[in-house]
Every structure is written in C-alpha cells, then in structure tokens.
C-alpha cells in the first residue's frame, strides 16, 4: 500500500528514510477516498441480497474499507443501485442521489439497474437507472455474484485513482445542479420531457396531411 502512494521521484536523504514519505496531493487524497468508500445502505431487490452477502464474512467488503454502510444519503459516497428500478421508486432514488454529498458515485448493480433486465418490458419498470442519474460503474449479472460486485468496486477504485483534485468538479466554483425529480402522473413524467409531451400532443391535435 505504501508503495502505491509513496512517490520516490524526489530523493530522500538516507537518514530520513523510513521517517519521511513524499507523495503527491492527488495520490494521498485518492488513497484516502478509495480506501473508505462508504456505500449507502440501500437495497432494491434480489441484487441487494448478494450485496449483503458481499458485506458478510465470506466475501468481506471491509477488506476495501467499504463495510461502513450508512442508511442516510448524507453520509455516503457510493450508491449501489441493487435491483429493479421501478417508476414508483425512481422519484425517491433521484431524491436520494441529490441528497448525497459530492464526490459521489453510482454503481448500477445487475441487469435491471443497468438497462431494465428481464423486467424491461414491464409497464412499471424504468429502463435502467442511467436514464435519470449518472452511473459510474455497471456490474453485469442477474444477480451479479459477490465476486462480480467486488470486481465492480475495484473498478470504481481505479476510477477514483485516476481523478485529480485540481480538476474535480466538486471543488470547482458553484454548486452542482440537482437532478429534477420525476413525477408520478398518468405515467412517469420526467420534468425534462415536458416539451416533448407537449409537442406530441400538438401533433396529435393537428389533422394529418392526408386527411
């Protein structure tokens, strides 16, 4: 682990070796973050069971410093969307995402969260959580085995390793935009879609050219 953050480009005098470590700000910052990713205690469906198994003793999420699952979104870094995202649930998921402090990451665990999965054609199913919130890592499987989830988490660590404090959006000026929360109407309404609904209604109201 020390090899990873210790960058020996700058010579250290012999007598200080073992007492001084020289590294970059990015490396120590990312090392701290990647080793304490706190996931939200948030399960949707079948995949949540495998997520719990991953946190249990056999697969042991705490090897990665990720065993601290917090029920409150305010204390979390990672949202593992573990299961089928339904239309009835998506307003709450978007609200939870908006409540997470930055830097925040989203993992789509399993086929349903990634794209609708076996239930995609259902009338109450959202075709993947990425239609509403940005996803960092997709984990395939139905459900993904604990090994697959661990692999996804390691991919997330790689992503964190490659970020830089100087370009990170969460330290730049201005607050980030909250994602508009979908509304439950006659069907699910994305507030960003108002124009399209109105346009379609206008097209339906106008007589077609052939008539």
């Amino acid at each position, binding site marked *: 682990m020390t090899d990873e953050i210790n960058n020996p480009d700058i010579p250290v005098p012999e007598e200080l070796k073992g007492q001084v470590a020289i590294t970059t700000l990015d490396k120590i910052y990312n090392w701290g973050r990647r080793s304490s990713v706190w996931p939200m*205690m*948030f*399960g*949707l*469906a*079948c995949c*949540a*069971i*495998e997520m*719990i*198994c991953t946190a*249990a*003793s*056999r697969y042991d999420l705490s090897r990665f410093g990720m065993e601290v699952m917090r*029920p409150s979104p305010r204390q979390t870094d990672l949202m593992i969307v573990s*299961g*089928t995202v*339904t*239309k*009835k*649930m998506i307003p*709450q998921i978007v609200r*939870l995402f908006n409540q997470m402090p930055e830097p925040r990451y989203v993992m789509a665990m399993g086929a*349903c969260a990634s794209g*609708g999965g*076996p*239930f*995609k*054609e*259902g*009338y*109450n*199913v*959202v*075709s993947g959580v990425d*239609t509403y919130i940005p996803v960092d890592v997709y984990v395939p499987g*139905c*459900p993904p*085995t604990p090994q697959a989830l661990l692999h996804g988490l390691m991919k997330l660590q790689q992503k964190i390793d490659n970020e830089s404090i100087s370009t990170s959006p969460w330290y730049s000026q201005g607050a980030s935009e909250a994602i508009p929360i979908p*509304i*439950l*109407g*006659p*069907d*699910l*309404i*994305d507030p960003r*879609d*108002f124009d*399209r*609904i*109105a346009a*379609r*209604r206008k097209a*339906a109201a106008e007589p077609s050219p052939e008539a």
Partner: protein
Amino acid sequence: MEEKHSGPIETQSPPAAAPAEGLEARFPGSVRRDERQNFDGYLVEPGKLVEFATALRDEFGYDYLSSVTGVDYLPEERLEVVYHAYRSTGGPALVFKVQTPRQDPIVVPSLTGVYHGADFQEREIWDLYGIRFSGHPDLRRILMWEGFHGHPMRKDYQEPYFEEEGKPYKNRWPEGSVYRIEDKNPFHGNVQYPDEFTPEGWVPEGDDALYAGMKKVSAGGNGDGRGLGTEQIIVNLGPQHPSTHGVFRVVVTLEGETIVELKPVMGYLHRNHEKIGERNTYLMNIPFTDRLDYICSMSNNHGYVLAVEKLMGIKPPERAEYIRVMMVELTRVANHLWAIGFLLNDLGAFFTPALYAINERELILDVFEATSGSRMMCNYMRFGGVARDLPEGILETVRELVFERLPRRVDELDAYLTGNEIVRTRSIGVGVLTAGQALDYTAAGPVLRASGVPYDVRRADPYSIYDRLDFDVAVRYNGDVYDRYLLRMDEIRQSLRILRQVVEGIPGGEIQTGKPQYQVRVPAGEAYGRVENPKGELGFYVVSNGKPNPWRYHVRAPSFINLTAMGEMCRGQKVADVVAILGSIDIVLGETDR
C-alpha cells in the same frame, strides 16, 4: 422404491364439491357448477356473494379464504373474480367465481366483511383489473400509484414497450432483425400518456387519499375531554429505510409513542411479474419465478411447475421428486436462518447474528450453485422433472450438512438467542395475532402456525412425496414475535429431519418424464398449484386456453397477504416495535409487489 409413478397418470384432484355437498341446494338458482371443461368449482351470482361466503364460513367450515384474483376473459366480454377457500383442518380448495360483464360500472361486492384477508387482494384487483368492490373500506390502488392511467392486467392494455401478444417475438426468432424497442416509442422511454394529457396546469394526485384514510381520533387526554390533549401525528417509514427489508413503506398514526393506525404501502418493486408472465411461454416463466421470493427460488419453481404439471397431467419420476424436496427443504433452512438473522438485526443486534446465519446459508448456496449453476436464481425445475441430475459428490456434501454441521449450528444459534434476556423482553407479547385473527386475515406459513393454527400445506393437502415423509407440523400458540422466531427454529429442525430421510432414501433413475421440451403443450383449463413456501402458502393460478402462453398467470404471494394482518398486529404497540413485527412476518419485496 417403485418406479411406476413416472408415466403420465390421472392427476384429477377429487372434486372440490365432495366435502361441501349441498351448496347448490342451499342457494337454488344463484349458485351453479362451473361446467367449462377442465374448470372447477362454483359460479356465484354477484348479488348472493356475501351471503354465500358467510354460509361457506359459518355452515360449511371454509374458514380460510386463501386467494382472490381476477381474470379478464376478453373474447367473452367478461371479467371474473376467482376465490379459493379452505378448511383450516385440511383438504382441497373450494373454488368459487363471480362473473361480471366487461362494461362500466364493473362492481362486485367486497368480501372484506366476511374474510378480512380479502382486503389487499381486492385492492390489487381494483388496481390491475379495474373491478370495483362495493363495501370495501379503503379501495385505493395498491401496486401502482393513484392517478396512474389504465388497469394494466386487462388483456386490452398495452404497455409502452408492447411488441406482440405473446412470445417468442417474431422479429427475433427464427430469423428477424433485432431492434431496440425504445426506438419505436415516441418518448424513447418506457412511458406513454393518454392523448388528452398535458403537463401544464396538471396536479399530481399524491398521497392525499392515503393520509385521509389514516385514523385520527382527536380525543383529549383521558378520552373524556379533560386532561392533557395529545396531538396525533402521521409518520412515514420507508421506502428507503434500513429495516424495511427492501423498498417497503409503512405509514403510522402515532399518539405519543403508541400506534393508533398503521397502513403498509407497497408497489415500489412492482415489476409486472404477472403481465410479463402472460406474454411469456410456460417454460419462460420458470426463471421469472426465481425472482419472486429471491431468497427461496427453488421452492418458487416448485409451486409453478406443480400448477402446470396439474394442467398437463404429468408427474415427475421418483428421483426428481426426491431431488425437488431436497432442494426445497434446503431452501427452507436457508430462508429461516436468514429470517432469524435479520429479525435480530431489527431487534437491534446489528449484523452479528446475521453474520452467523449468512455463513450457514452460504454453504447451502454452494449446493445450489453446484447443482443448478447459480447461487440464487436457480432456474432448476422443469415440467415433469428437474433440469439436470445432481453432480457427483453433492449428496455427500448435503449429508455432511444435514447430519453434522447444520444441527450443531442451529443448536448454537438457539443457545445464543432463545434465552437471551434482550430478545425475550423485546419480543414476548409483542405483535400478538390470535388464531382467529390469523385465519380471518389469511395469514399463512409461520405467522399462521405461530398463532396456534397447525396448517401446513405439506400436511393439509400433500403434494410431491410429503405424504410419505415423517415430520411434524411445527406450531406455537402465543402468536407474538418470540413465538414466530421459535417456530422458525422448530421448522429448521423439522426440515433437517426431512432432509435426512431424503438423503438416505433418494432412489436412482430418470430425472425427467419424457423428453425435455422447449415448447410444452398445455391443454385448456385452469389449475391451482400450491406449496408450503418458507414464507407461507405460495399458490400459482394458471388458466390455459391451449396457446403457448398462459391466458392468466397469478401468484398468490404469502409475503403480500401476510401484510394484511400487520395493521392489526401493530395497533396499540410502541413505534419501536414496528420493525420487530415486520421482521417477524418475514417479507420479501420481490414477492410482495411482484
């Protein structure tokens, strides 16, 4: 072991009318036999329904209304409500049906006054079929939200991603061009809106109807108008909450810390199992049943294949029956371990007891993975058998588990938990459901048996090889959280007892009747297959019209129906007990919402 069970045999169950002789004579002109071929039971005039059900309960002994569901017979312009009632002393189901024309207003009298257990199921039918139940105390949508357009289980309802009535879809098979269904939808998403809908000036319905139904008694102080008045407040728990076992929500009215009224709100994981199931072919539904109660996929498979086997008139060979029972009982052990672990979680012992339970469950999942290829979603059973034979050496693993390891581990859990002072104080006398209430609210499985009703489908209406196995129906009598915990402990021990017999007695031979088929031929008719799932009675109501896809595919989900009694269990308890009571019911949201 004799081998002659393997061929197709008569599976016609004894006519349900036999024990209830005299029903037609009791209601001349308004009750008649259902004469359609391969259909069973009675057709009741809607006007006489409540009277009929009351007589059934009080005079004929059918004190348990297990399942209520709707069917849309679109070609005949008819809607039907199908009821399955049992005697709590055992025996086959009595099926009765009410038919109504398919024009508005579609109204059927509600049976909630006779059997409280009809409450949520009637709300589900209103939600999905648009049948109104007159006299229902709280007829709101239950799985979808208030304001949703349409009643999605009707046969003429087309979902936004509709392609064809039934699978396999022509464009993908045998030679077609694959396209993404999103590209055909005007909104490029899984949504559709009625033509007249416009977002400007429109107000969502929200939860007003729900909150309006919450009881608020504004009695001051001692109820006599004097003393200190308390204000009752409404509190929401969920759908995102660590103790709701998934995306489940309850709304409670509190007076101080005491619960005045509690209503479960579900549908946050409603993923249209039944609608998709009616588009699928029969075989395609097996992997979907895995995802119902995702802790117990093997036993879900079992219920569904039993229902379809009843329709097809086939029976699996002896070895397959043994393998099935072995898998199902292992599932029961795994589920109860999980339930006990997470009940302790809910009681405040965060995660340590659950770690003990999960550890043992992992060993059972290893058996499933070796046998079926998957830890959780086994997709293992087939019509007339199982998908593949047991791999080499797995029987030894199971033998080691059920003779050596698991009994010791259960004793260990027992020693840590049963006498534990905190567990006892938190759970004894909490969430009491009496035997009468349990029957009235159609509680099933451990919830029913912990209330003193020794009803277990494996004994009451035996299926598979359970009539030849030696085991006791576990029963406890206090009906509180502690007894439900104890009952699960008892059931693990009984399951291990069954498993020991199965491991010793498993015969050799075939694992499949006939050739495994991709497209099974299912004759027209109806069938109801029920199994004792770890969570309670799981039933599959399947109506076939001879086509490759089922006309009606309904799941009687124990997790869903057990929640009907939750309000009753929680009334008068403290707010901190809600999660304990919920944990003791042991729900899985995949099955609750389907």
